[in-house]
């Protein structure tokens, strides 16, 4: 079974019009997101895999090719992981 993506700890998402950010109360680290980032973040709930997220993105946004979308998602998740916002 494919790994589900899950956020770390008590990360807070704040949406402000076209902008959004993540806030980690433990470290006070802040990460700025765009709308797509915020959409993805909401799916990092331990219930969705990468494939689930790609499918959800397809329904919500005009995506480039499947390959491009997968690459972009992988890059985004890698950043979130590096910044300590999601588990591997």
């Amino acid at each position, binding site marked *: 079974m494919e790994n589900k993506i899950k956020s770390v700890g*008590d990360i*807070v998402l*704040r*949406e*402000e019009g076209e*902008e*959004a*950010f993540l*806030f980690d*109360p433990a470290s*006070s680290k*802040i990460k*700025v997101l765009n709308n797509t980032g915020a959409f993805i973040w909401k799916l990092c709930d331990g219930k969705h895999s990468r494939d689930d997220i790609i499918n959800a993105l397809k329904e919500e946004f005009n995506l480039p090719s499947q390959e491009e979308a997968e690459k972009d998602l992988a890059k985004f998740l890698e950043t979130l992981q590096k910044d300590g916002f999601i588990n591997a």
Partner: protein
Amino acid sequence: MDTIEKKIFKLNTVYFYICGGCNLTCRHCWIKPESAAHDLDLEGVKEAVDQIKEAGANAVKISGGEPFLRKDIFQVMEYMRQKDIKITIETNGTLIKDPEANQLKKLGVKSISVSIDSPDALFHDKFRGLNGAWDAAVRGAKALIKTGFSLQVIASIYHKNVADLQRLAVFAEGLGASSLKLNPISCTGRAEELIKNEEFLGIKELINLENYIQSDLQPRLKIRLILDIPFAFKKISVIRNNRGRCGILGMISILYDGTISLCGIGATIGELNLGNIKADRLKDVWENNPIVNFIRENIPAKLEGVCGKCIFKRLCLGKCRAAAYHDSRSLTAPFFMCQEAYENGLFPQTRLYQGG
């Protein structure tokens, strides 16, 4: 443990209010300079610079009063250069002409900001208390830009010049300045008179002004516009570069007479003075003074009021602790703008974190 604390609280910058006098009598001045009679002499300043190095700082922001009133200002800066200290300067610009600008460039001064409050000479002169101040400041700004400085224009903003902001921004851009910093008038020093007359901008006006700048004015201009209000009221895309934070955990000040203080506030609030370089070592004050240690132990963790609930408290550090102390005689009190906004339902809910 000791080593860790010293590493975390490295002294980065010393604000050196090097001259107690000023050639202007600005209506809003928070320092309220009176006279140069008690200024450190050149040897005293050199001793201060030696102590700054000893305390570990590599950067000095020179301010005043008006620093260029000192006849030996270039000797002072030359001494700082010899000690590998990065210099930034805040000046009213009126005493700078081409030769001074060239000399500053040769000394490797990192950046300079010049105060210009209006595109109109008469307005500026009245506000700054000297006929011809605007002409001289603009001449100074032009000389600095011509010499290759990336100049910041600083304007004090209040009821009487806020309507002219667009013209001021266009004017500053036309001068060739790289940024225009707008300082809402602070409530100390001579500004208390302006506060009494209700000439300062309230938080609602400042929030509206920030929105206007970011959504309307900034997109039309190349010059970078910075309204100096707390992060809580700025768009996340604007604050992500972290500029505008008070360096209170990495800075200390020396006043014109050698007094060591948290910042320029020491000139008007004596109890925030921490010693004097004539009798104390700056390094010892930085490492052991109870007020400095109190700030380390309590900012931002023990910030009170809305500052304690703010999502950006570690980034913002309560904006200006000197202002908080001025208002309430407490270094952990909330910053007045934020608290006023909170009490009037104007503080952005997305910037609050109850667990904070």
